[in-house]
Each structure stands twice: as structure tokens, then as C-alpha cells.
């Protein structure tokens, strides 16, 4: 299930719901990302995320479909926030269920690498030293490229 949310979500409740629904598969891996409170020396006051309604959801669906082709996954939840977020607020949650841990770990890792570089979001940090649009770092592209080589 893919959700792009304008309002905050409750991490624990979402993870519990996923486990209740999909946990019988055997292995569940969850990753959550939160807004960082600092960018180098600067303090981050807020993060604003934009998306392209409809197109963004389809870009995530394509990423999920690719993960399902690569690993025998039984269930996936992807939640991604948009709008204005404060430091510490959850921004992304990826839950993967599979029969065994290895494929669940790998699929979650893959999903995050692709969400970072291919999902259609744009984010702007409001910082103590001004506003900055964030683009993927070289490391993010390198991380995503790992999956081209391995499978």
C-alpha cells in the first residue's frame, strides 16, 4: 500500500498495523526516516516537501513493482509525507514482509535507495542560514546504482 500524506502519521501505529496484517510471512523489516535537525553547522527549522499528485504515486508504484520482481516479497507499505515538517517528524516509512530476513532487508534497502533518487518529491530546507532545495547527493546516486550491478 502506497500513501502520500499531507498530515503527520503515527509511526508505531503504522508499524503495528503492518505487522498485524503481514507479519505471518515470517520476516518484517521496517525503515523510518525523520527530518534531521541540523545540516552541517546550520540548524534546520523545517522541511517542505512538494509532490506531483498522481504522478508521484505512480513513480512509487513503479519502484514497488521493481522490488517485487527482484525479491519474493509478500507485502509492502510505503508512506511518504509531503507538506511542511518539523525536525524529528517522520518523513518516510517503508515496511517489507517476506518469508526470510535477507530478502526483506535487501528489498527495504533497495526501496529507500530508489525513493531517494527516483520518487517524485522535491524538498526544501528552511535553515538558520537560509532556504535550500535539496538534491540527491553523489552517495545517493551511487547507492541506487548498486542495484543495477547486483541483479
Amino acid at each position: 500500500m502506497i500513501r502520500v500524506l499531507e498530515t503527520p502519521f503515527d509511526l508505531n501505529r503504522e508499524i503495528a498495523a503492518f505487522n498485524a496484517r503481514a507479519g505471518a510471512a515470517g520476516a518484517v523489516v521496517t525503515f523510518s526516516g525523520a527530518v534531521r535537525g541540523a545540516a552541517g553547522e546550520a540548524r534546520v527549522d523545517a522541511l517542505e516537501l512538494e509532490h506531483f499528485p498522481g504522478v508521484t504515486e505512480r513513480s512509487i508504484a513503479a519502484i514497488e513493482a521493481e522490488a517485487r520482481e527482484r525479491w519474493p516479497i509478500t507485502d509492502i507499505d510505503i508512506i511518504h509525507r509531503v507538506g511542511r515538517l518539523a525536525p524529528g517528524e517522520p518523513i518516510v516509512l517503508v515496511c517489507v514482509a517476506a518469508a526470510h530476513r535477507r530478502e526483506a532487508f535487501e528489498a527495504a534497502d533497495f526501496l529507500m535507495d530508489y525513493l531517494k533518487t527516483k520518487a517524485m518529491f522535491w524538498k526544501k530546507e528552511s535553515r538558520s542560514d537560509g532556504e535550500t532545495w535539496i538534491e540527491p547527493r553523489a552517495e545517493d546516486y551511487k547507492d541506487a546504482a548498486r542495484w543495477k550491478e547486483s541483479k
Partner: protein
Amino acid sequence: MARLLFFGKLGDIAGGRARDFPLGAANTVSALKAAIAKGDPVLGDALAAASVRCIVNEEMTHGDAAITDDDEIAFMPPVSGG
């Protein structure tokens, strides 16, 4: 008039995330970028970047793609989720 959408930093440079724009003789994405650049060279430069992608009517496209005044044309800088 075509509907233009500007995402991320392009929205800041354009001074708004959406605008209606009469295509006139500009019947491809490349020609549209040139027409925009005439009125707004700073935005024109930003749109000319190789990293800027274009989506017409919610489908990924390229510079030679044909466009009409009925189309929605979205310009997107590099994405950054997660």
C-alpha cells in the same frame, strides 16, 4: 493556453508553481523553453539544464515532443525523496 507546472526550485525561479501560457508558434517542448527564455532569461537558463525533465499530460517526454495549447507541461528538477 497551455498549463505550465514548475516543481521544486523551478517554482521559486518562475515565481509560481503554475501558470497559463499561450504557446503561439511553439509546438515542441524545446520551442516552449525558448519562448519562456525570451520573456524570462533566468527561468530559461534554469529550464535548459540537462537535469530538468519534462512531463506532458503526466507522461515523461523529451525536447522534440509535440505540444498544444490543451496540454499540461510540467518541468521538474532532480527529485529528492526519503
